């Protein structure tokens, strides 16, 4: 297990280093002079030179990378070229909003996928199975930006059940925060539910055919208890690995969901940074979300290893 942990940590460090090179290169992929791309051609040479120096663009490429990655390791991601605020401070304000949305979407996804997947497997080839699989297929095929717009159309504008846009911090008014959270969480979570339902169904189906299930039933255990105590425990292990990948999908999807529902998270910040050509904010935003996705993936893999004796004692 320790050797497995060492190997995974080493691979993560290498991947994080390569990710930093990719994010760093965004500024250098800009055709022409990045400073002109940011400021336009109408500013004077002195202003251009000042920004070039502030972004370190007047140094050799390797020195620029060293400076940027060294700063990032110390929590310094540079300054916004528009507001002149430190990027790390802006991200510190925005990240909790994105994490809240991602966590809420995960709860929605799991609350739908677990019962739907188990029911579809237990009632294989029935109307329930067909319905669950239809929903799952819809969940993975309907893009979140259309789903979000349709949910606003129905639940906000037509039935007036939930607010269409806006974010309320939980600390200010928990009930109102929850009302504002329902539609964004559904928008992001239904896609996850679609992907997980298919996975849970196939894993439960595989476990249903095993001998220990027959033994448990032969001992007189109720079927619901067999599912809860035996089948789910084994079936959820492969699902856990998919969940790690899905966290990355959720963090990416949050960009669009935040934009639809006007949530002031990292996603909205990144889109604004693209529009205003604020490259330090863009780089910082993408780097923090990507690092978060990679670390969560590692944690999920480790949880899988801890729960799976074949890796734990391997």
């Amino acid at each position, binding site marked *: 297990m320790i050797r497995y942990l060492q190997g995974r940590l080493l*691979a993560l460090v*290498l*991947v994080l280093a*390569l*990710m930093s*090179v*990719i*994010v760093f*290169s*965004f*500024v250098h*992929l*800009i*055709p022409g002079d990045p400073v002109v791309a940011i400021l336009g051609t109408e500013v004077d040479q002195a202003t251009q030179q000042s920004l070039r120096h502030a972004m370190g663009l007047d140094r050799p490429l390797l020195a620029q990378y060293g400076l940027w990655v060294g700063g990032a390791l110390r929590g310094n991601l540079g300054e916004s070229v528009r507001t002149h605020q430190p990027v790390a401070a802006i991200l510190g304000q925005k990240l909790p909003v994105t994490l809240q949305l991602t966590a809420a979407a995960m709860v929605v996804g799991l609350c739908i996928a677990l019962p739907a997947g188990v029911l579809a497997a237990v009632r294989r080839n029935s109307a329930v199975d067909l319905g669950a699989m239809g929903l799952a*297929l*819809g969940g*993975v*095929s*309907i*893009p979140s*930006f*259309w789903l979000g*717009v*349709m949910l*606003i*159309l129905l639940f906000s*504008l037509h039935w007036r059940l939930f607010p269409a846009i806006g974010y309320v911090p939980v600390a200010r008014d928990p009930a109102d925060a929850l009302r504002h959270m329902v539609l964004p969480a559904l928008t992001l979570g239904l896609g996850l539910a679609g992907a997980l339902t298919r996975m849970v169904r196939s894993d439960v189906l595989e476990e249903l055919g095993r001998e220990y299930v027959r033994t448990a039933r032969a001992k007189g255990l109720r079927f619901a208890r067999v599912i809860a105590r035996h089948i789910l425990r084994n079936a959820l292990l492969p699902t856990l690995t998919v969940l790690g990948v899905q966290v*990355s*999908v959720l*963090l*990416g*999807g949050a*960009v*669009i969901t935040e*934009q*639809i529902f006007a949530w002031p998270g990292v996603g909205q910040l*990144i*889109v604004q*940074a*693209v*529009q205003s*050509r604020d*490259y330090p904010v*863009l*780089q910082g935003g*993408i780097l923090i*979300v*990507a690092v978060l*996705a*990679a670390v969560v*993936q590692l944690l999920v893999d480790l949880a899988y290893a801890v729960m799976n004796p074949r890796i734990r004692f391997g």
Partner: protein
Amino acid sequence: MKRRRARFLRHRLGMAGGVVVAVMLLAAAGAPLWRTQDPLAMQMSQSLQPPTPQHWFGTDEFGRDVWSRVVYGARLSITVGLASMLLATAAGVPLGAAAGYAGGTFDALAMRCMDAILAFPGLLLAIGLVAALGLGTGSGIIAIGVVYVPVFARVTRGAVLVRRQEEYVEAARALGQTDLAILRRHVLPNCLAPVLVQATLGFASAIVIDAGLSFLGAGTPPPAPDWGTMLNEARQFMVSAPHVAVFPGLAISLAVLGFNLLGDGLRDALDPRL
């Protein structure tokens, strides 16, 4: 080959996906035939009209015919999907094949680079690349292609690792064929099935990422009839004209569903082990 074709023809969902994709390809190829109006022609007096016999899907805020724009949008989506998948295949397949066949340090290095790209949420990496390369359809194609290079590299590497142990490869090596010739003549042709499946499934994701980029204002700029841009513009008129948001979204969902079903069907028919 015959057995695979029969297996696919028996796959009902895969066939349904194939029909949807065929309809979409027909819509894209024959867009000038199916359109009822010029997709760019504005008629302000006709703005935000509901569906009528004259305008099957109604009109948008500039009085443009939504049906014609949706049909032309298929052309744009197919182009982006095809070009980005070709780009990803052209880079990913040789890289994965070389890594799988050569092994050792090159394999380890190449795969860690692929892991780094894969670790990014796809849409986020595409946004970063488009922001750097400049907003527009061409940048979107390159960005989506880059996002998908590791997927093809990994799939090809996995397939090559299996094939290079086969006896016919050993025989070719014993006959004195070069590594490049063995890869080209014997190994790669046998790895096409998983690549084809991945390209079909990737096509669906490419359509979603492209529409997502346009929805965020980072893809194909207006007034081009792009599904994502149409949906983004329609948000302002959701109360008075919901149909303007419904039809482009339906088109995206249907296209994605079609490619996903076709990909699943091809996977089951061509490579049941996957």
